[in-house]
């Protein structure tokens, strides 16, 4: 396995508030890596920092052998990194089709049909809704659209920020199933930020636990699932 993304000593600030305190993290090619943690731990910030918004103040972000720490966001996204951002952020007044096309902007027009087909195989629901406005979709469909849109850029690394947010368990299972499927069939590397620790750890090859802007634990999904402190803090919903 080769390293696709590595962060070393990354810090990030919102004004004077330090959100990330020296993050070290690696994602190997073909892996699903999950990042779990409580509200405000800095999970989404880490995700956004990889995309250069906000920029990392210290440390280094290396993608595919290239230091992208100081690159502008849109340039980073043109390197085969795609993000389905927190809260989905789909274009609600544009149709599903237009939303998907927006995702293909980076990859260029060639092969759009094939990409669309791929997305529709993964999420048949989107095909039914193709001419509908994004805003009229249900939450689960919007999440599918956000992931589908991200996939339209033919990424090698997919960043997923809380795809289970506000969704029914059944839909969550469906979406996680799709992620596993993608990873298995296309070898897509996925970095997944989740609150839903149990599902995420079961899905992921490896996981990191983020607390107050620092990584406190790392290991394979199964290992982390077995750790009593993880069970206490994230799985059984309380401070044991």
């Amino acid at each position, binding site marked *: 396995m080769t390293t696709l993304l590595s962060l070393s000593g990354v810090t990030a600030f919102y004004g004077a508030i330090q959100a990330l305190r020296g993050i070290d993290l690696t994602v190997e090619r073909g892996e699903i890596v999950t990042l779990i943690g409580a509200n405000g731990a800095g999970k989404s910030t880490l995700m956004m920092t990889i*995309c250069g*918004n906000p920029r990392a103040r210290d440390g280094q972000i290396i993608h595919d052998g290239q230091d992208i720490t100081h690159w*502008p*966001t*849109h*340039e980073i*996204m*043109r390197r085969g990194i*795609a*993000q389905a*951002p927190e809260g989905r*952020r*789909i*274009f*609600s*007044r*544009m*149709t599903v*089709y*237009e939303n998907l*096309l*927006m*995702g293909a*902007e*980076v990859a260029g*027009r*060639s*092969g*759009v*049909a*094939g990409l*669309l*087909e791929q997305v529709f195989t993964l999420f048949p629901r989107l095909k039914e809704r*193709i*001419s509908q406005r994004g805003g009229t979709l249900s939450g689960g469909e919007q999440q599918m659209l956000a992931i589908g*849109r*991200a996939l339209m*850029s033919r990424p090698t690394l997919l960043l997923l920020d809380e795809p289970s947010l506000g969704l029914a368990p059944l839909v969550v299972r469906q979406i996680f199933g799709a992620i596993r499927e993608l990873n298995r069939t296309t070898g897509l590397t996925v970095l997944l930020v989740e609150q839903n620790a149990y599902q995420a750890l079961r899905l992921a090859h490896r996981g990191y636990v983020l607390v107050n802007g620092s990584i406190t634990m790392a290991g394979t999904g199964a290992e982390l699932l077995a750790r009593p402190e993880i069970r206490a803090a994230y799985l059984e919903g309380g401070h044991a």
Partner: protein
Amino acid sequence: MTALRDAFLSAIVAFGLFGPLVGLVTANGEHGLALTARPIATAVIVGLVFFGRLAMLSWRGRTPRATNRALAERITRSGKYLTPVLLIAAFALPFTGSRYYIDLGTLVLTYIMLGWGLNIVVGLAGLLDLGYVAFYAVGAYSYAILATTFGLGFWTCLPLAGILAALWGVLLGFPVLRLRGDYLAIVTLAFGEIIRIVLINWVSLTNGPNGITGIPRPTLFGLAFSMDGGPGTFAGFFNIEPEVIQRIIFLYYVIFGLALLTNWVSLRLRRLPLGRAWEALREDEVACRSLGINVRNTKLTAFGIGALFGGFAGAFFATRQAFVSPESFTFIESATVLAIVVLGGLGSQLGVALAAIVMIGGLEVLRDLLSTLGDQLHSPFFGDIANELPLYRMLIFGLALVVMMVLRPRGLVSGRTPGVALTKVKEIAPELVAQGRG
């Protein structure tokens, strides 16, 4: 009973508002200006408000809201037929031969074109621009100065004026890239004023408040529309009697063509990735960035292309008037164009056209009707109103905006037609989609 009380309260408000606005006129008295009261006019307005409110209340009591919505839907749907009807009407207008209507049509088309230009910035890209008149002014002065100093013709200057305006658009775009919403509006507003004040004070270039006169008229493939009827003129070439109306009609078709060009380009752009990026930008800037869209360039092109059409319209304005002065480029013009865009429904081409027709044409026709009515009835009352109507333009705009925001908060034509749609999914072969034609 509550309806009566409500209507009475509305009448009081109307009296408070229109009493000073309409009821009092300044007139030249013996000792300078004097105030004259106009009780009848005030009474008529207050009465109108009273009974209007009463009618509104009883109407609302009876009509279910669904009817209103069905009506709104019908307006939106009738767009399909309305567009060709409007196009044919616009094309056929000069055949009436009435100078009044052709002039009015030219004015309305100018505003339609400005509206479509601003629509790119405000409607599509979602950047609230209150200084659009600046680009109109840049276009007008570019043509005026180029034509009077270098003797260049209209058709040479038209693209130049557009490009210069676009350049200013991009220049304005740079400092405001990080601004959003209200802040953006304030800076663009200031920019509009800066351009006007520069025009007033840079006397050596712009001749200051006196403006530039003697701006040449456009020619038709080199044929001028002059009255001498020589061989190099339109009338001379076609061997007809030279008449002023020929030039008026020609100007009408020039702006008609320019407006159609604006519309065509906007519609084309909306189907292209750039247009889609504008719309996406209006929806969510962060999401755009996360999809690899260069937000800076996308915004700048929106400002630039919007300004380009403002510049074209400005050059046309200069050539039509044969005279430009800073007075023509006040904030009120920006506000009018913006009102047209907002009333029409942000992003809707047809809506903008309708709003311009109603706001510019409708007002003018109303004025004409009132003054004719006044002449017919030999009553100075209607004539007075007709003469003063332009003064109340902003009041009527404001009223129209309020009424619209209550009845149709998303504008006259609020339905957004997708730039690309898969209405006939099965008919599109994958290879067509691959070529980007899906």
